[in-house]
């Protein structure tokens, strides 16, 4: 909770600065003495982990740009120059490429935490919206960044996604040509994606500052969903949360290092090591894994324009969430029915991810042919995508609005410091 500042400048320099620009006071109030709920579990460490990811991407990205050549002729070779000739170039490139995946792993966990514990509910709606904006900016940044190595997937992925805008009636084709800067994805497209890919992370950093500001106005949520009522409910951010965040970051770095040093290309696609060729389409165009659920939703809808709207609609549901959920109870720890729907939602997201990587007409259960519906066998990934997409939208548009009105909830504890009424209430 933003309260009264307890910072006392100790030295003369501190007092001098504090009277002119109270930045140390701001830092102290926000990250040292800041009252943090004492019952935060490890799901709350991902904010800090995300800041680490952003810093890592910014630093490695700026270094990569020192060596990268953003032209269609030279981009691919310049990335290989980085990998082979630049001192530690291989390390910086693999950190940046895998760092993007780590960034998305962390952001999905962070968002799911928010979903489960009701962190989007009043008074944290703006905090949640800012988070959605960050997520959108991240996706745009990642998409443009993937185009830069100018491999086959970079190029043809850009072709597929920019062509989506052609689905918009009347203005679609003009917008697509405007995006391309030509009649197809080519050098102008690469150059502008490079410019924007460099710009957007700084926009993300700005929105992150707003996000943390919005957080500090209302204070952290916590696993019980009950606001801190007294000093007994909180601990100072430093050292309690700092050291826990530090430990969590260190474990996260182990995962990161494992990818960078031992499986650096596992999350990518082999075709991107082939230089872009507009005349040859890869046998299987797949976006990066973090886009796969949305790609599945896009392909689930048979109509091109409706597919595009469904894909963006899936993201729009996130923005509308604070107003869709009617429950008076914040944390799903005390909402047993909602918990089940949530777990199912999580499973559906993973299923959508798998579907996004498969060919739509491939069978889900091998060698099994059932009957054809709307041009595809029922035992196909496109129908699985359709079922999963249906649940995805139903979760936001039907389950959450209705459940809040009809569900039976567990009793919510009075305060954080006296949490347990029964052993069950402490789980989850």
């Amino acid at each position: 909770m933003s309260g009264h500042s307890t910072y006392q400048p100790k030295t003369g320099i501190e007092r001098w600065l504090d009277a002119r620009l109270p930045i140390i006071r701001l830092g102290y109030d926000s990250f040292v003495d800041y009252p943090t709920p004492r019952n935060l579990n490890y799901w709350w460490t991902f904010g800090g982990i995300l800041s680490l990811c952003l810093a890592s991407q910014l630093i490695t990205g700026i270094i990569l740009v020192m060596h990268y050549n953003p032209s269609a002729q030279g981009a691919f070779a310049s990335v290989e120059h980085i990998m082979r000739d630049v001192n530690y170039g291989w390390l910086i490139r693999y950190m940046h490429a895998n760092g993007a995946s780590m960034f998305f792993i962390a952001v999905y966990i962070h968002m799911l935490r928010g979903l489960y514990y009701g962190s989007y509910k009043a008074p944290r709606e703006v905090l949640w919206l800012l988070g959605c904006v960050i997520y959108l900016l991240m996706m745009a940044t990642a998409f443009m960044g993937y185009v830069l190595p100018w491999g086959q997937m970079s190029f043809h992925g850009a072709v597929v996604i920019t062509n989506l805008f052609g689905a918009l009636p009347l203005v679609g084709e003009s917008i697509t040509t405007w995006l391309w800067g030509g009649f197809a994805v080519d050098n102008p497209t690469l150059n502008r994606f490079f410019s924007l890919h460099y710009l957007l992370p700084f926009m993300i950093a700005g929105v992150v500052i707003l996000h943390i500001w919005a957080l500090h106005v209302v204070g952290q949520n916590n696993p019980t969903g009950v606001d801190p009522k007294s000093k007994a409910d909180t601990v100072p951010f430093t050292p309690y949360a700092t050291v826990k965040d530090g430990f969590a970051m260190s474990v996260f770095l182990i995962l990161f290092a494992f990818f960078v040093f031992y499986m650096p290309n596992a999350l990518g696609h082999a075709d991107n090591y082939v230089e872009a060729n507009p005349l040859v389409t890869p046998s299987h165009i797949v976006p990066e894994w973090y886009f796969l659920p949305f790609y599945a939703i896009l392909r689930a809808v048979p109509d091109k324009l409706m597919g595009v709207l469904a894909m963006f609609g899936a993201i729009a549901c996130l923005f509308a969430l604070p107003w869709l959920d009617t429950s008076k109870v914040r944390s799903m720890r005390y909402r047993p029915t909602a918990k089940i729907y949530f777990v199912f939602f999580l499973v559906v997201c993973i299923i959508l991810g798998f579907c996004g990587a498969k060919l739509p007409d491939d069978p889900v259960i091998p060698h099994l042919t059932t009957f054809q519906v709307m041009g595809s066998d029922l035992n196909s990934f496109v129908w699985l995508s359709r079922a999963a997409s249906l649940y995805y939208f139903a979760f936001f548009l039907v389950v959450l609005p209705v459940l809040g009105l009809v569900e039976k909830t567990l009793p919510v504890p009075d305060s954080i410091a006296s949490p347990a009424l029964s052993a069950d209430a402490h789980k989850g």
Partner: protein
Amino acid sequence: MLRKLSVIAAAAGLLVVGAAGPALANGGALPAKEVHWSFEGPFGKFDQAQLQRGFKVYREVCSACHSLKLVSFRNFGDKGGPFYSEKYPNSNDNPWVKAIAKDYEVADIDSETGDAIKRPATSADHFPSPFANEAAARASNGGALPPDMSLLAKAREEGPNHIYSVVTGYVDAPKGLTVPTGGHYNPYFPGDLSSSWHGDHKHVPPGGFIAMAPPLKAGLVTFDDGTKSTLDQQAKDVSAFLMWAAEPKLEERKQTGFAVLIYLVLLSGLLYASYKTVWKNESH
């Protein structure tokens, strides 16, 4: 809790089924043969003798059509490379590197007359391509473009296993398969043969048609270290060489990774202890 677990279990079951997919997932080709490589695993290293043999195979057979344009001669003298020697930490001074480079000619401009000339390569030069450009390459190969090999081992899903499998995997086309002119049947090469197959449509043969004729055969390349030059050996050696060409920093990467992971595990331990100490008397 139990409910949660059973839902997750059901989902996991579905996922396993979903992920298994059809047996011939990779573009209809057979999954690549598994080879044990010296460089695989967290402590993998290139076998320098193997890299030298592999380079000989590349040089005498593959380089007629396949370029290696992202590799420089000096890379051969870098740590982990086929001609690295501790006596020459600067690969530009490495005599084997210089000798190999001198055997190749690269295009250049005469500084006095301005004419286009060919001069012997130095260690700083990249491997020259066998063809001047893509059109020339296609014209000499019946319209097919022999891919550049600098990244081939990373540009194929199964990497060096794939290269090894394709090169050793040529078999006679089964009866009922119409092989197009200039094509060769290879069960490890991706493709969809259903339109060229006149047999039972439930059993379309795996693989596809590759424009390259079988490039290697026993005894084609004599190995200087006396290793028996079987097809299998040549294929393994050239695949290992191409893996080095694609990822010359592999050894350095894995060695650094080991140190970094040890450090991070220790750091995590220290931070955990610090965390436990800070929170010792606080309810959490």
